[in-house]
C-alpha cells in the first residue's frame, strides 16, 4: 500500500531523512512514534503529497503522491495536528466537500458525529477546537479513504473524547484501510495500534507488530532488585519499579507503549535482540 525506498528529505540545509525505507500494509493501524523534530509529520506530509522527496521514491496505492492526482487524493485523507475548516454548517460540509470522495457515507458521518456528541445542525464557526477536530476525524473516517493519516489526533480532545476516539477508530478499521497515527500521547492509543514504528534521526529505529511485542516483552511493576537490574528498561515509581523485561511465559502481556518507547530509545539494541529471538520448539 505504501512503499518508501531510500527517502532523502531536507528542510533547506537541515536533513530530516537520509535513506529511510518503509512499507505499510492495509488492515493495520500504525503508530508512528518519535521525539520532536524527528520527521513524523514530515513523513506524513510526504505520504500525502504535500512535500516532495529530494531523493528516493514514495509510492502510495500505486500513485506518486507529489503529483496530487484526484484519484490519489480521493483515497488519502490527512488529519493534521493544526487544521482549518471553513465556517460553514455541517450540512454544507457534506453537500460541498463530501462529493469529492466517491466512497463518502453521509450515514457514517452522522453516526460518528453523534458518537462524538456533536449536535448535527451546528455550524463550525461556533465550535471549539476540540469539537472541530472531532468533526474532521468523523469526516475523514466517513470518506472511507483507503489511507488515513493522523497527526496527533488526540491533541485538544478532552478525556471523554479520547475514549470516544478510541472507540470510533477501533470500529473504523477494515481490511482495505491503512491508518497511520503519529503521536506523543501514546497512552491515548494503547490497545488501538497494531504496529509500532519508531523514527529517530531520520531512520526507522524500530518497527514491530503489537502482537509480537506483547508476546516477547513483558511490562510490569517489580520490587525484585535482581529483576530490575536485568530488565531491558526500568524506572522507579511510587509503587516499585516499572520494568520492561523478556516475556518468559506463553501468554501475551499488556503493552505499555510509553515504557516500550523509552526502552527502545534508551536500550534499542537489547529490545530488538529480544524480539528477534525465535521461539524454541
Amino acid at each position, binding site marked *: 500500500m505504501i512503499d518508501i525506498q531510500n527517502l532523502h528529505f531536507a528542510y533547506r540545509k537541515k536533513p530530516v531523512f537520509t535513506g529511510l525505507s518503509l512499507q505499510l500494509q492495509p488492515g493495520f493501524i500504525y503508530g508512528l512514534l518519535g521525539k520532536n523534530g524527528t520527521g513524523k509529520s514530515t513523513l506524513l506530509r510526504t505520504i500525502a503529497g504535500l512535500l516532495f522527496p529530494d531523493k528516493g521514491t514514495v509510492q502510495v496505492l500505486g500513485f506518486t503522491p507529489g503529483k496530487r492526482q484526484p484519484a490519489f487524493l480521493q483515497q*488519502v485523507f490527512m488529519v493534521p495536528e493544526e487544521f482549518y475548516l471553513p465556517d460553514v454548517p455541517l450540512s454544507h460540509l457534506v453537500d460541498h466537500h463530501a462529493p469529492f470522495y466517491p466512497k463518502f457515507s453521509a450515514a457514517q458521518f452522522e453516526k460518528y458525529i453523534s458518537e462524538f456528541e456533536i449536535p448535527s445542525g451546528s455550524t463550525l464557526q461556533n465550535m471549539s477546537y476540540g469539537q472541530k477536530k472531532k468533526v474532521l476525524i468523523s469526516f475523514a473516517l466517513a470518506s472511507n479513504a483507503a489511507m488515513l493519516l493522523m497527526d496527533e489526533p488526540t491533541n485538544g480532545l478532552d478525556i471523554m473524547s479520547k475514549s470516544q476516539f478510541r472507540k470510533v477508530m477501533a470500529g473504523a478499521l477494515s481490511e482495505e484501510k491503512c491508518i497511520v497515527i503519529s503521536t506523543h500521547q501514546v497512552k491515548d492509543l494503547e490497545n488501538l495500534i497494531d504496529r509500532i514504528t519508531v523514527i529517530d534521526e531520520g531512520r526507522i529505529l524500530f518497527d514491530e507488530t503489537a502482537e509480537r511485542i506483547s508476546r516477547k516483552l513483558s511490562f510490569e511493576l517489580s520490587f525484585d532488585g535482581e529483576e530490575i537490574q536485568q530488565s531491558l528498561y526500568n524506572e522507579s515509581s511510587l509503587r516499585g519499579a516499572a520494568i520492561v523485561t523478556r516475556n518468559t511465559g506463553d501468554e501475551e502481556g499488556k503493552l505499555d507503549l510509553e515504557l516500550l518507547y523509552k526502552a527502545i530509545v534508551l536500550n534499542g539494541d537489547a529490545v530488538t535482540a529480544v524480539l528477534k529471538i525465535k521461539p524454541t520448539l
Partner: protein
Amino acid sequence: MTQTFDARRWWLLVTKHWSENKKKYSLSLLAFSGLLLLWWIFIVMDNHRAPAEDIQINAYYVVLFILGCLYASTLFADLGSKTKALNYLTVPASQAEKILCNLFYGVLVFFVCYTAIFYILDFVVVKAGNAMAYNRWLQQHDPRSVFKKETVANVFSGPSGLRDKGFSLYLLLLYFVLQSAFIYGSIYFSKFSFIKTVIALVLVGVFVSVVLAKLISPILPPGNFRDGISSFQVYTVKQASAGQGTMIYSDPATDKMMSIPSWIGQVLIFLLKYAFAPLLWLATFYRLKEKEI
C-alpha cells in the same frame, strides 16, 4: 474521469468555493458599492450635476485597476497559511481544476460583478444628478440656454479623443496583464503579496528601462521605429564641416529603412497584447504544482 480536467469536478470546486466564501464576497461587494456610491454622491454634490462621461470612464478604470489587483493578490492567500494550504491542496481535484476555479472567480466573476455594480450605481447617479441639475437649471437658467443631460458612459468606448484608437481595449489588456501579475504574486509570496508584487513590478520596470536605455539604445543606429516595431528608420548621418562633429537628420531620400517581415511584426504585437496574461496564469499553475507545505 480524467486526472487532468473534469468539468463535473471543476463545477464541484466552483460550488464549494462559493459555499465557503459567499459571505465574504457578498460583504465585500456591499462595501465596495457603498464606497463607490459615496464617491459619486460627493462628485454630484460638488458639481451640482451628474458626472460627465469622461469622469465615469476614468472612475471605472481607476477603481477596476485598484480593486482588481487587490482582489487578485488575495486569490491564493490561503497557500500562505499552512492549515489552509493543506485544506486546499488535499481536496481531490486536479491542479488545473483548482487554478481554473480561482481564475473563474478572480478574473471572470470579479470583472462581471464589478462592471454590473458600476453600471447600476452609475445609472442611478447619472439619473439623480440629471434630475438635480435640471431643477437647478429651472430655477437659475438663462431663457436662451438649453439644458444638457449627461448620459451613462460606455466604459468600453474609451475617453473622448481616444475612442478611435482602441484605447479602452489596450487599457483592458493592460488591466488583465497587471491582474495576472498580482495573481502570480499571490501564490509566489506567502505574506504581504500585494506590496511585494508592487515592489517586484517596480523593479522589473526599472530593469527593463535600464536595459532599454543602457544596452539596447546605444547599439541601435540613430533613428526611430515605424509601423509599430516591425520597421526601423535609420536617420542620415553626415560629417559636418571639419572639427564640428557629425550631423544627424531625417531625409527620406537618404534615410534607410530596416524591416522585418510584416507577419513577424504582427505575431510580436499579438503576443505583446494577448499572451502576457495567459503566460502568467500558466506560471501560476506551475507554481501551484510545485507548492510544498
